């Protein structure tokens, strides 16, 4: 069974004082108009702690949109040179680096994420993301066009305006910056709604943005629930674009609200059921490692989790043996403990959902190779054992639905064509992994899989310059890379006649 870390960790990690719990609108922390407070439970690990965070309603969203609108229509942000925006974004990044410990602790408290990972990866790499887009802010090129008659024409890539960002709870920091950084670089102003489970770091970032010289009204943060605050953003007539990361179910609501209001531009990064295909010629250790990390990283609470692993028959037995051994040695426990590899699921709802899926898997006839149970650490928290099912068929619920937990569905295949077909038989298309040494197999499968990212002999190989986003019902529009910048720009063509031009 997944072993667990220190039961009695009253860790050396200092739980930070929570400094910011109000809304951030037009450069100030303010109470919500409704006066509601959101009771945020931080009892997902071995400690219990309650905190009141402002809970916003439509009126608060209106205020935030007004501020963003004003900052866009009349403010300095879209009117300053890209290099000046870049300077302030660089300062913002430096401020994040200076507060890594505190920020990582906020995300761990809020989401049960590993503190050590937050400190080493999530927080610093978000500063890097900001720097990447800072470097892009002065490189937004339009084109000068070839007209078929005597015309001079060119394109302007203009900031799209006021953007609503809706951020999920699984990567509160990473996704905050994947959305906010390119929008800032483009010259947009914005309203960010973090998930109701994880509002704390977003408020802290708003504070840092102000210190970095991002003008008031450019970056507003409203905390609250989807059906109220989120819905108000999606249907707002004065928001020009909405960028959402979350479930496919909610993505549909977002798009509908946009359609029914002002047809705002929508980008959606939604769920996934990403396949990892391991071919006979794969290195077993590497393949097992990728399969394991692919599903257990961030407790499986990641949209690109490799939750379906297809293994070619020649390597199947060896690989499965290795994978089960590794899963059993995986350390589950308090996320503040540096030895721990997996913390608790984010909340009771997710925890219950995962356990229900595990029951489905058993009932539908998949073979449970390891795990399958909750782990009671000190009687508290939402810990789930790393779980592997074998002989999973595409029509089973555990192969179809996004579980968002440490539950892996394994299946055996014979031919490339079969693997491609089965890997594609899903409504999702976020990412896929291929493990093979064969160049032709790698190339053929890469082009055949209907997914937004293909990792060959690697997984989770994200990069700031590498666009990320889904096919099919995993959404549309890219985060990361210069593609993401273009999500926050719109193209204007400018045309004027030419007289006596010596060339066309």
């Amino acid at each position, binding site marked *: 069974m997944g072993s667990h870390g220190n039961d009695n960790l009253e860790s050396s990690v200092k739980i930070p004082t929570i400094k910011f719990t109000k809304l951030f609108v037009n450069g100030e922390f303010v109470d919500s108009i409704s006066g509601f407070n959101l009771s945020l439970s931080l009892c997902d690990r071995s400690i219990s702690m309650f905190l009141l965070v402002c809970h916003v309603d439509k009126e608060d969203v209106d205020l935030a949109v007004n501020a963003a609108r004003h900052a866009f229509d009349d403010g300095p942000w879209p009117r300053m040179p890209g290099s000046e925006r870049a300077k302030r974004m660089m300062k913002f990044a430096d401020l994040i680096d200076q507060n890594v410990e505190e920020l990582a602790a906020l995300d761990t408290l809020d989401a049960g994420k590993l503190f050590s990972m937050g400190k080493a990866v999530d927080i610093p790499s978000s500063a890097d993301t900001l720097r990447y887009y800072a470097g*892009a802010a002065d490189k937004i090129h339009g084109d000068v066009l070839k007209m078929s008659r005597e015309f*001079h024409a060119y394109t302007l890539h203009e900031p799209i305006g006021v953007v609503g960002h809706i951020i999920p709870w699984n990567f509160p920091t990473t996704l905050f910056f994947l959305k906010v950084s390119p929008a800032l670089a483009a010259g947009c102003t914005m309203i960010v709604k973090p998930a109701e489970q994880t509002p704390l770091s977003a408020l802290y970032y708003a504070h840092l943005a102000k210190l970095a010289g991002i003008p008031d009204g450019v970056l507003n943060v409203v905390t609250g629930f989807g059906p109220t605050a989120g819905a108000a953003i999606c249907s707002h007539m004065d928001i020009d674009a909405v960028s959402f990361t979350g479930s496919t179910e909610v993505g549909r609501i977002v798009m509908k609200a946009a359609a029914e209001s002002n047809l705002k531009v929508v980008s959606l990064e939604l769920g996934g059921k990403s396949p990892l295909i391991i071919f006979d010629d794969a290195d077993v250790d590497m393949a097992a490692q990728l399969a394991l990390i692919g599903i257990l990283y961030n407790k499986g609470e990641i949209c690109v989790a490799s939750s379906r692993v297809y293994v070619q028959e020649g390597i199947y037995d060896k690989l499965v043996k290795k994978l089960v051994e590794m899963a059993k040695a995986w350390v589950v426990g308090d996320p503040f403990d540096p030895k721990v590899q997996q913390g608790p699921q984010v909340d009771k709802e997710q925890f219950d959902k995962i356990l229900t899926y595990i029951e489905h898997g058993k009932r539908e006839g998949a073979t449970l190779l390891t795990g399958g149970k909750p782990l009671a650490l000190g009687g508290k928290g939402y810990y789930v054992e790393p779980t592997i099912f074998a002989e999973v068929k595409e029509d089973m619920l555990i192969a179809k639905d996004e579980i968002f937990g440490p539950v892996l569905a394994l299946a055996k295949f014979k031919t490339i064509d079969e693997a491609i077909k089965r890997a594609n038989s899903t409504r999702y298309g976020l990412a896929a992994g291929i493990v093979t040494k064969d160049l032709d197999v790698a190339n053929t499968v890469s082009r055949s899989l209907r997914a937004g990212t293909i990792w060959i002999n690697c997984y989770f190989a994200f990069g700031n310059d590498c666009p990320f986003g889904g096919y099919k019902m995993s959404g549309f529009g890219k985060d990361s890379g210069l593609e993401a910048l273009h999500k926050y720009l719109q193209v204007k063509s400018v045309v004027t006649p030419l007289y006596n031009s010596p060339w066309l």
Partner: protein
Amino acid sequence: MKAGVSTILGGLASRYFSWGRAINRFSTSVAVEEPIRPTVQIDYTQLLINGQFVDAASGKTFPTLDPRTGEVIAHVAEGDTEDVNRAVSAARKAFDEGPWPKMTPYERSCIIYRFADLLEKHRNEIAALETWDNGKPYEQAANVEIPLVIRNFRYYAGWADKIHGLTVPADGPYHVQTLHEPIGVAGQLVPWNFPLLIYSWKVGPALACGNTMVLKTAELTPLSALYVSKLFLEAGLPPGVLNVISGFGPTAGAALCSHMDVDKLDFTGSTNTGKIVLGLASKSNLKKVTLELGGKSPIIVCEDADIDLAVEHAHTAVFFNQGQCCCAGSRTFVHESVYNEFIEKAKARALKRVVGDPFKKGVEQGPQIDGEQFKKILNYIRSGIESGATLEYGGERVGSKGYYIQPTVFSNVEDNMLIAKEEIFGPVQSILKFKTFDEVIRRANTTQFGLAAGVFTKNINTANTLTRALRVGTVWINCYFVFDAAIPFGGNKMSGNGREKGIYGLSNYFQVKAVVTPLKNPAWL
């Protein structure tokens, strides 16, 4: 102690205020005053090879002179073939073995960003050094050039992790990609008119792409590059990536251009020297060459132009940096209907130009770089007068020491006069008259050069027609000398080849490798 240039400026301010009135009039007197002593120290005079400051192999040095007086500022190590060989092998090793090209692009960008921060911190000393060695106004160096240098480096730092190859649609079942790979060891030859600005145009993109380099400074202005390259090492640039050689063209420069282990040359300077550079590259290993050479850039002032605006820009276009700009607007074509008005105003503006010690506040024009240029310019002025152009203003040296020349304005200049054909590289404005667009387009293009042009008009169609008709690398419409890291710059015809700055500047420093492999059963093509 390193220069507190703010103290210099404090001193300057009091001088300025006590003699402020004199400065506002034509300031011939300023030049004959005792030169203001810059409080920056000369700390680096050796060659920078493989991260170390070293003497020349020969032990030789040469003096670098103060253009205000012709006196020696410092003796600088004189690089020659053997030093170039050492520098190239250091750069070769740094390229072939790393770590520079093997680092992540983001790490490279962080080092360049750090360097830009250090430049900002030391900007006053750097500007003082630039002024001392070159003679350009301190305020121009500190407020215009050094900020542009910083901007260039930040701009290219931001490119380092965004240099994209393409995936390419071939006609058939092939997977094709292009890799944009660093070229290798670059030889860079920087001129004396903008020693650091052009350093940044060359070093910034070369580093962003992952190259290593040997940079030869101009023998007239070796100091600032050594100073800032030391800051690059402080910022974390690995040894051997950027080597700096002081020395002369026929020795150190020629050795670099002919070197078999140098993969790329990037030269800014005169058209004549550019020909030599290209020749040496072709005689040795056919290394790729980027050239940014001379110019005789036209400014066209149309009938409908805002004349005051045009006068001001045309003035700056030819007098900025003592006229020592490759893209100086040295032929000003003015429509006949506004010709007389333009001349009167241009003359009045030249009369107001403040010439004097470049360290003095409010000074717009310092001395020419050296005695040779000084004499050459005075000869051109004489030739202008002899060939029948009307000397409206200036034409004389200022003071008796150093290389100061009056802002000089000629009218009634004809296309066939020497002053209308050759690059003078001095403060000499030539004003010509035109009647029709076709005529002015033809005359503006009748030159071996093609670097830049200015157009002054309010009419969108005139602007578009002239823009497309002028055979030059940059057209400034109702402005001039708008330089920015993102705006490409370079010449047509004998003004050079290639473009520096902007996204185009990157392409001088990577080469494209196409990678092709067949596809088996592709899902789409």
